[in-house]
């Protein structure tokens, strides 16, 4: 079915084409409205040959994307899995309520979901995953299939992003709200300047243009906030990736720790075996003392103990071997992933910061030009 090592995205065109509202009964039989997204796929070879076959498609809810991601995170603990867009419309810009049905939010989500799929399908390891392939092609029964893998047993409770990111975005949110208020209040000038110009003769035109300027100024805030939203989205992506990296590191630390424990346990068991076998107590132990005091055990008991120890040692050696392999694997893959990710993400963020600065500059320039034009206009039209 899937040849090892070839990237899924090379063989299949993937997109999240549309979003639609649905109504239905949920798991606890309550009627709810939710959004579904159309996942379309087309085989690349057909396109290359010049045919234009209609895409295969199926509908997926956000929760199904989440399920896929959680499954991948658990299945590949050393890999940084690409992030999903926000679950809830928590950070809303100057709108009255957090509305998951809001068209802007839905559209941003659609784009985010498509990006997620494209990134997963182009990842050298993740793209080979069977559940991913079924997610893209098998509309019904996919969820059950995933649950059947039993992955949830291994699920890490640290799947959610930490609250550190929350502070940044709540500040950004408040800044946007305040900026909006400042601009909109300026808009009130528009009307009063216009009314004032009506009672003036020489000054009238100048005041009119000042009023128009105020109206235009107030209206410009919507564009500004849209650009700020875009910037915020880029930052969110960066920060949630950072969280995923931290999770990977913690997992690695945990594996290291388990290996240590297994190794120590093996060492102590081997020592016990030696003591039993040779009767020589190398290290001080209470058992050794009591043996000396109360006499040694019977030979049958000693043999039974030795046999048990041998079994345990054999198991322990297996465990250590596994854990070591795991750690090595982790170390190598995690390191490669982290390096690749961090470097790329830093570059992406620098790019985002440059664009943010460019946006600020263009805004300042525009406002300066507008103001200068209005002031000059005022001077010209006022003949006094």
């Amino acid at each position, binding site marked *: 079915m899937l040849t090892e090592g070839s990237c899924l995205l090379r063989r299949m065109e993937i997109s999240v084409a549309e979003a639609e509202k649905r109504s239905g009964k949920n798991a606890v039989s309550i009627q709810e409205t939710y959004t579904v997204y159309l996942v379309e796929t087309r085989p690349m070879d057909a396109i290359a040959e010049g045919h234009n076959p209609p895409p295969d498609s199926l509908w997926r809810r956000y929760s199904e994307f989440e399920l896929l991601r959680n499954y991948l995170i658990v299945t590949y603990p050393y890999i940084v899995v690409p992030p999903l867009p926000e679950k809830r419309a928590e950070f809303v810009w100057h709108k009255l309520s957090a509305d998951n049905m809001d068209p802007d939010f839905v559209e941003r989500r659609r784009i985010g979901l498509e990006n997620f799929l494209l990134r997963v399908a182009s990842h050298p390891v993740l793209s080979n995953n069977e559940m991913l392939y079924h997610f893209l092609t098998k509309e019904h029964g996919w969820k059950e299939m995933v649950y059947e893998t039993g992955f949830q047993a291994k699920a890490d409770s640290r799947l959610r992003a930490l609250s550190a990111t929350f*502070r*940044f975005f709540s*500040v*950004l949110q*408040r*800044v946007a*709200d*305040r*900026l909006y*208020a*400042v601009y909109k*209040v*300026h808009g*009130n*000038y528009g009307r*009063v*300047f216009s*009314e*004032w110009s009506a*009672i003036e003769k*020489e*000054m009238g035109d*100048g005041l009119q243009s*000042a009023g128009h300027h105020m109206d235009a100024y107030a209206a410009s805030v919507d564009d500004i906030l849209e650009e700020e939203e875009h910037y915020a989205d880029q930052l969110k992506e960066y920060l949630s990736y950072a969280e995923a990296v931290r999770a990977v590191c913690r997992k690695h630390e945990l594996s290291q720790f388990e290996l240590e424990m297994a190794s120590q346990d093996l060492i102590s068991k081997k020592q016990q075996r030696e003591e039993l076998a040779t009767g020589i107590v190398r290290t001080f132990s209470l058992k050794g003392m009591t043996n000396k005091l109360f006499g040694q055990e019977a030979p049958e008991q000693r043999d039974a103990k030795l046999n048990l120890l041998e079994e345990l040692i054999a198991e322990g050696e297996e465990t250590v071997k596994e854990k070591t392999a795991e750690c090595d694997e982790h170390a190598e893959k995690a390191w490669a992933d982290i390096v690749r990710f961090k470097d790329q993400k*830093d*570059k992406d*963020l*620098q790019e985002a*910061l*440059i664009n*943010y*600065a*460019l946006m*600020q*500059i263009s805004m*300042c*320039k525009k*406002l*300066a030009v507008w*103001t*200068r034009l*209005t*002031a000059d206009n*005022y*001077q010209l039209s*006022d003949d*006094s």
Partner: protein
Amino acid sequence: MSVGAPRGLASSGQKLITEILHPLSAAEEPLSPGPDVTISAEKDKEPGLTNGTPVEISSPASASVLLSRLQLDGDPEADAHDPFGSGEPRDLFVTVDDPKKHVSTMETYITYRVSTKTTRIEFDLPEYSVRRRYQDFDWLRIKLEDSQPTHLVPPLPEKFVMKGVVDRFSEEFVDTRMKALDKFLKRVADHPVLSFNPHLNAFLTAKDLNKRQGLALLTKVGESVKNVAGGYKLRARPAEFCAMGEYLDTFSQKLGTIDRIAQRILREQSEYLTELREYGAVYSTWAGSEEQLQRPLEGVAGCVTTSCGALEDLSDNMSQDFLPVLREYILYIESMKNVLRKRDQVQAEYEGRLEAAVLRKQEDRTPIPVEVEKCQDKVECFNADLKADWERWQRNKRQDFKHLLTGMADKNISYYEKSQAAWESLITLLQEKQTEDKTSETN
């Protein structure tokens, strides 16, 4: 009319004639020494009025000098160097500056230096420098209003401030007040009638301003207008004065609205500033936990901080330069409306008396009394003064608001430019970094 003096009053220059040959005083003092005042007696009464040298306010120019001044009547439109547009060559320059705090056992107060430079012969010296406090300005204004009720006297900044709310001795407050006092005095000095008022002369020259002297300096004009009988109802206000009243009402309303909006903007800007500061701090904190991104993030924090500073400057400008002018004009309008009301009263009195006199004449052939004719002169005089002052006021208003609005525009542009410069230097930093990274990669 017994007085054959010309009374056409179209342009500001001719006012001087009116003052000398005032219809109300002409019968008693033909071509009297200058403005109609009785000062000579007072000079002996009040020895306190000294300035080191004996002050002689009492010998005004002869009529010929004044007449020659009239011929220098310049362009009525304001020129670039004469923002208050008196149209006459300026020969009286005043400045208010150098605030100082005085602490005594009874009270603490601020005085300002009032400097005068002049070539007018009403002044003994070409230069004066005295110290005055707000009370003194207030005294001057009241005296001007009383003695020249037919003219529009410029307003003073507000007298009372809530002691708990505003710090009367803060640099900001004192500076704003001083600028307004300076403007007041300059407007008076540029007024072709008010600037010759002896109270102004005393204010500018006396070392110690003795305010009790004022009573004796009341002009006949002032007295007669002050003693207008009330209780007469106005029949028909001339259209142009109706228009003035309506204009003032609407204008005052609009200014009030603009003031409220401006205050709201200041509040919103202040809250925005608070959030923006925290925003910058968050970038700094974040930078602390990064390696590659530390400099870029610190850079962003820096830009945000610069923007905060520039915005603070803009807000200060608004509250120190923009709002005071709005408020001053609102006060100006109030005092102008009072003058209009006074005019109405004067006209009403005339109409009332005329009606009564006409009736009596019809009854028993009693001729129209001189009083009634004097009233008519009063009305015409008032109307003429007011019309001329109105034109001057409109010109000044246009100048002031042009200056104000373009000034605010400049301050805003300065804010944008500062912000832009900060972000531009960040771009340079970031792009340099990108190049650095690329070259280190290929190595």
